[in-house]
């Protein structure tokens, strides 16, 4: 598994030595900053609830934008051929790329810490909710990124990869919004599958093993799919 490190390092490097990282982080901060400041004094509440509730939506676009190039670009330029003929397993490649995507997402979240600092200065926020809120965002972001890595293995075209990732995430996000019209026996299943439902739990300050298991299993599942998809060159 130590080959994960050079892959991770190269991808992080590729993000920060191209405009990519700066553009997505700027857009991310612009949106979250606006939601943070616009009702900070109106609501008169020392919490990051408005930011924490909008970030999951922003991530739906943000995560695919980060991940779309991870493998699509390698496939398009043909560098994938060199990479997979190196003494490195397909799983190491997938994990390295996943961690790099997650790394960029965490960097973006780190830049939102000034919001937390602001409310710490202005009031007395619930520290537990702040911490679990960030934990929830990272877990949720990681699961989005894993979907994106899988989508990126599917197509040479980055736009196609973006759209596939966006669709899968969007469905996982929306799945618990239609519970009212679903047959009752499906409700618990759909609720469990929903990314948003688990995030709601965590951001309330409740760390439940069921939510952790959900996110981790989604990540493992998606990365395994990505590995399979990368291996599909061997099937024909």
């Amino acid at each position: 598994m130590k080959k994960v490190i050079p892959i991770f390092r190269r991808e992080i490097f590729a993000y920060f030595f191209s405009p990519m990282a700066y553009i997505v982080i700027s857009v991310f901060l612009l949106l979250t900053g606006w939601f943070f400041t616009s009702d900070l004094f109106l609501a008169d509440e020392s919490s990051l609830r408005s930011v924490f509730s909008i970030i999951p939506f922003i991530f739906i676009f943000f995560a695919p934008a980060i991940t779309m190039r991870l493998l699509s670009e390698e496939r398009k330029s043909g560098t994938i051929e060199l990479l997979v003929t190196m003494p490195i397993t397909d799983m190491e490649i997938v994990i390295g790329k996943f961690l790099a995507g997650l790394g960029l997402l965490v960097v973006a979240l780190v830049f939102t810490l000034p919001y937390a600092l602001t409310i710490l200065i202005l009031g007395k926020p619930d520290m537990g909710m702040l911490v679990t809120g960030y934990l929830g965002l990272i877990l949720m972001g990681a699961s989005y990124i894993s979907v994106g890595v899988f989508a990126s293995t599917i197509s040479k075209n980055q736009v196609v990869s973006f759209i596939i990732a966006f669709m899968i995430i969007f469905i996982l996000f929306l799945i618990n919004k239609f519970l009212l019209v679903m047959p009752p026996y499906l409700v618990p299943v759909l609720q469990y599958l929903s990314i948003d439902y688990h995030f709601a739990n965590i951001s309330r300050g409740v760390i439940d093993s069921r939510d952790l298991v959900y996110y981790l299993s989604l990540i493992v599942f998606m990365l395994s799919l990505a590995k399979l998809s990368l291996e599909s060159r061997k099937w024909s």
Partner: protein
Amino acid sequence: MIKIENLTKFYGDFKAVDNISFTVNDGEILGFLGPNGAGKTTTLKMLTCFMPPSDGRIMFNNLDVNEHSMEIRKMIGYLPENAPLYEYMSVQEYLDYICDLREITGPKRKERLDKMIETCGLSRMIGKDIGDLSKGYRQRVGIAQAMIHEPEILILDEPTVGLDPNQIVEIRNLIKQVGEKKTVILSTHILSEVEATCNRVVIISSGEIVADGTTGSLQEKMAGQSTLTLEIKGNTAEMADVYSAIKGVEKILSVSSSGDSTSCIELGVKHGFDIREDVFRATVEKGWVIYEMRQHKTNLEEVFRQLTLNQGAVTQ
């Protein structure tokens, strides 16, 4: 030693490589020759563990590609077609990255990097982005990347495509230099390249091996063979039958109508025959007229053409 036995590869229904077998001995520079789409790249992709064969076996010494992929990958240096590289990395960063992946560490790393930069003539380009390099330099970076871990086997897919004549000579010398100690397999569709660098050649066409031998033996085999080009005024449809009946004609290489009632016809002549007189008599007998008759020795280019042209059209 690399042993390839009954190797077959299907892409869906399409048979790209059809039951080929050959061995590559240690220290050999093998030219893997064939027209575009003959299955060269597919075969190399199977050798480098990019994808497994549909059928057949590839053995490196005593390791099978399916079972010992990781060990074999460590032994191989590979330059894929068109030298795919990361555009946004500098040469130095890229080679560092490859060292990481190949686990070249410590003092060894510096030594190998310096050696590769020197051998491949990259010292002036070391800080430049790969995307800004010319085709020739990219190819050199690709070769440096393939040799950095001192592989026992070097596999190069069309290493000189797109290079200018000076660069081609340089790369060939580089390959020869490496081939003194290592096994090299290089694919190409350029014949002079094989003559210049390889000591053995395997010619492949439509997924099948059509020739396998040293460059010398191949030339010898075909030496003395000649072709006769004729321009005849007469009945085109009958020509193939009339001339293939002549003793000493190996095969009709081509018949083409060149306007009016004249046709050009190319005959392959067996070793040691001079058929010009017989051709003359046969033509006169038919009441046709000879406009042109030209005899010339077959060179390697033509050997290649004869071997790889669609067989059906050639032998008719």
